[in-house]
């Protein structure tokens, strides 16, 4: 399956080198390499990158299941479970329920080797890297923004081929921290981060929320953003961020005795009268508490 003209050759998804396979009519797998460019402060993969992976696998399934209708991500929740222990991480998605107006998809993110096989540790398959679920809104097919070319034969393989990231993923997105304690982080809206509607891609939104949450929650504990690992994102997509820059703000909720803390992050399209585009519940832990040291 491919979407005509999307993503363009110079695009985040291409730079992440994602490889995908539609395994059945209702399941798919999408993987990306574990590299220093996508590493979280704790050493694992940034949850925003995993969310991007999940969004792509969900979108691939949804586009096929809903064809000729189109889709928009309505919500996405992801939580880290264990550290990645292989050279790749793979999101394995499947349909949970197809309704009249919504489609719910579940995805498990696991560690895989270069051949796509499960990585084992001491003869055992380790715990997954993350678990995610998402809801897609069904958009009736009037004038879909991109055309899906569906193959009748399965499996279908494809890849997003581009240049590799030559620096941290947040730098590639041109993310700028305006005010760390307030969680004010900015990202421009440009073709490199577009979704198929020409607005800010859902995974990029997750990355922005991750950065905003880490900055604000870190500041609340006397750390900078690199001292926190975001472990959970609960994202409600309310409107498209078409103009930009999209700027976040964060409200720190509370901090537990072990430093585990939560914030509510709001994203607004400052080029569209400050329209509220996204609300995200963010949970983070200090790097010395967590987790995700890449193997």
């Amino acid at each position, binding site marked *: 399956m491919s979407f005509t003209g999307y993503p363009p050759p110079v695009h985040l998804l291409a730079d992440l080198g994602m490889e995908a396979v539609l395994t059945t009519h209702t399941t798919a797998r999408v993987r990306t390499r574990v590299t220093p460019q996508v590493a979280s402060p704790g050493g694992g993969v940034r949850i925003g990158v995993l969310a991007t992976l999940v969004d792509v696998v969900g979108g691939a399934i949804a586009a096929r299941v809903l064809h000729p209708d189109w889709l928009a991500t*309505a919500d996405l929740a992801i939580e880290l479970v264990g550290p990645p222990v292989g050279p790749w991480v793979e999101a394995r998605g499947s349909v*949970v329920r197809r309704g009249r107006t919504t489609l719910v998809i579940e995805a498990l993110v696991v560690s895989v080797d270069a051949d796509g096989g499960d990585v084992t540790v001491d003869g055992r398959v380790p715990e*997954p890297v993350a678990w995610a679920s998402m809801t897609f809104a069904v958009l009736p097919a009037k004038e879909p923004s991109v055309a899906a070319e569906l193959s009748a034969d399965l499996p279908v393989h494809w890849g997003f081929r581009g240049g590799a990231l030559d620096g941290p993923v947040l730098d590639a997105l041109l993310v700028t921290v305006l005010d760390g304690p307030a969680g004010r982080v900015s990202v421009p809206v440009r073709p490199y981060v577009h979704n198929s509607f020409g607005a800010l891609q859902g995974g990029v939104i997750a990355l922005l929320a991750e950065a905003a949450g880490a900055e604000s929650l870190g500041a609340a504990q006397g750390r900078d953003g690199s001292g926190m690992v975001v472990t959970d994102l609960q994202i*409600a997509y309310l409107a498209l961020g078409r103009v930009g820059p999209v700027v976040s703000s964060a409200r720190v909720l*509370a901090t537990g005795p072990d430093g585990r803390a939560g914030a509510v992050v709001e994203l607004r399209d400052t080029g569209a009268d400050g329209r509220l585009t996204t609300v995200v519940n963010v949970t983070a832990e200090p790097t010395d*508490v967590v987790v995700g040291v890449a193997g």
Partner: protein
Amino acid sequence: MTGASPHGGPGSRTTVGPDGEVVDGAPTDPAVDRRRHVSDYFRLERWELPGTVADGPPAIAGRTPVDAHLRGPGGGLRTGGLLTSIDSLGGFTSGLAVLPRWIVTTSLMATVSELSHVGPLRLRADVLRRGRNSVVTSLDVVDEGAGDRHVAAATLTCAVLDPDAMTLEFERPFVLAMPEPQIDPVPPDEFFCIEPGEGAVTRLRLEDQLRNPWGILHGGAVAMLADEAACRATLTAVPGAGPEHGVAATDVVLHYLRPVKVGPVEARCTVLGTRAGRTSVRVAIHDVGSDDRLVTLGSVTVLDV
């Protein structure tokens, strides 16, 4: 109907249910008022905030005490109870926003930042987005007894129901006083008919008082079941879990996929992983008596407390 948890409004007059059945606003059992039974258990008071009635979507506040029999291992209101109040208030707010249509909850995402509460807890629900097919509402919960310390944040998404499916009327601005304390309160597991047990599977009997005016299982009961099931699964599967006081649910995601009509209801848990006193549990809830169909899917993060 695309989801599983439609909300009957307190003080409302329901005439026709979403499946066309006549409900007439009155419970089948006169001793049980299905419009309020579950939220009354948590003594949820509600009031519409000034200035939000005439234009735009409403904002509704609520208050619930933290009675002794409702406290969990964390020392505060059990997370399942918190989610029930969030679902009740958020669903009602969403419904008011789309009158004369009504809503059904399709997903609930919540993060609990404080498990120990003084009480009462004050809730506020604001509509973030009111679309043709769905309503998104944010909820905030603070502990009034602890200087408005933050307790939880949540986002509730509801699908809008066919306007021909029901007629609901409310006096505006809406006010509902806090119900009186129960004389002989029963613990949550007993009230919600959650069978005793341990392990990966927890079962709920679908007794009549747990049905809402539409005759299906209340979304709050589903949340309470998910909470209890995830905690039991953690205590069974994770050696040393809850070494001091036990375990409690914090971050919760629930997708209400289908209404629960028959029962019994089973929550089947898979412990995904554990680290630093924090366990991730996938929860799949099935209506056993309805061809065992999957009715709710979600995840619960369980913390040692």
